[in-house]
């Protein structure tokens, strides 16, 4: 449903802070849609342990036959690239078009390759 609730004139602007003291750890959920495909990130959820995370993931992410297998991983266990290092990390490959098949011109007479 929807729900851009309009600002009431004079509504206080909230500083929404993170208070992580009480809540359960977060888990990242990966779902394999069918055999032969990779597990793909579906979303995340909170759960007290891995078993409950799996149970919750089933209810939240596979209610319509979206999967045949689920992985859950503690969000804190994921190491990610730093968005500030994107240029240094990935740009060098932009300058190496010869890594792609389309770089090479093959005469039509040769046929499909």
């Amino acid at each position, binding site marked *: 449903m929807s729900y851009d609730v*309009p600002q009431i004139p004079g509504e206080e602007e909230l500083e929404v*802070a993170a208070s992580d003291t009480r809540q359960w750890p977060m888990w990242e959920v990966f779902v394999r849609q069918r055999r032969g495909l990779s597990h793909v990130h579906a979303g995340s959820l909170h759960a007290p342990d891995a078993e409950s995370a799996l149970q919750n993931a089933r209810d939240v992410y596979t209610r319509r036959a979206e999967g045949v297998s689920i992985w859950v991983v503690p969000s804190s266990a994921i190491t990610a690239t730093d968005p500030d290092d994107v240029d240094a990390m990935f740009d060098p490959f932009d300058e190496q078009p010869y890594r792609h098949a389309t770089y090479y011109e093959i005469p039509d007479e040769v046929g499909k390759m």
Partner: protein
Amino acid sequence: MTGQERFDAVIDADEKIEPTDWMPDGYRKTLIRQIAQHAHSEVIGMQPEGNWITRAPSLKRKAILMAKVQDEAGHGLYLYSAAETLGTSRDELVDLLHTGRQKYSSIFNYPTLNWADIGAIGWLVDGAAITNQVALTRTSFGPYSRAMVRICKEESFHQRQGYELLLTLCRGSEEQRAMAQDAVNRWWWPSLMMFGPSDNDSPHTAQSMAWKVKRVTNDDLRQQFVDMTVPQCEFLGLTVPDPDLEWNEERGHYDFGAIDWAEFWNVVKGNGPMNRERMAHKNRAWDEGEWVRQAATAHAAKQAARRLEQKSA
């Protein structure tokens, strides 16, 4: 490139901002507020329909309604997760709802008085929601956009089941048709109000559109909804409770009557027919569920301790 420059470039290129990217403080705040209120709406939205699960007229309708209410809980979770990527926590957001510091959509402050209301909610309320949410799949914040894609797929079931429910009633007895008309009469205007104040009275629209958080204005979405819904209403053989409703050949759209904005603001401010009951019910459900959360935590700790024991044995 500075953070601001990179942010502007991504927005200009119609690409998505992701949680770890630099973003203006106002963008972050706007999104936390909007996504959280969207999540609260999904969760509170379980109440008007949950109210009818035990009284649905057949086992099939009960099962359908339970599946739909479960979907709303799921939608709330997708959205809370999206909001959490902006550096807030689930506990904080839930607390903002429970203490009334953040709102949910006014539509859920209207009561579901008869069975046909369940059909009207699916068709009109979820229909309005889909109109809004399809536009939001193109929002500039990645996690919000992805949640919208997932939700839109599921909402389609909601809208169709609502319409089919009303169609069944409209093909039934005179009393059943009257029930359907009564429900449409009561849900039509609140559904139009779901799109929010008129563009002239939405001071934040311009900024939200510039950030591409919002892609279509309130009035344009509302018009889209009316144009889509009126022919569907005619097919049901029901009338739209608006004497000013008329097809405008020149504009290629329906003209419709003035919305009662005084009623709208009154409900937003907490004085709708069901505001107090919805909040009281939500808080009660949360408090009464405390033992379940405690038990799950205790069980997890016990299992972890047992695994440790087995390892050391």
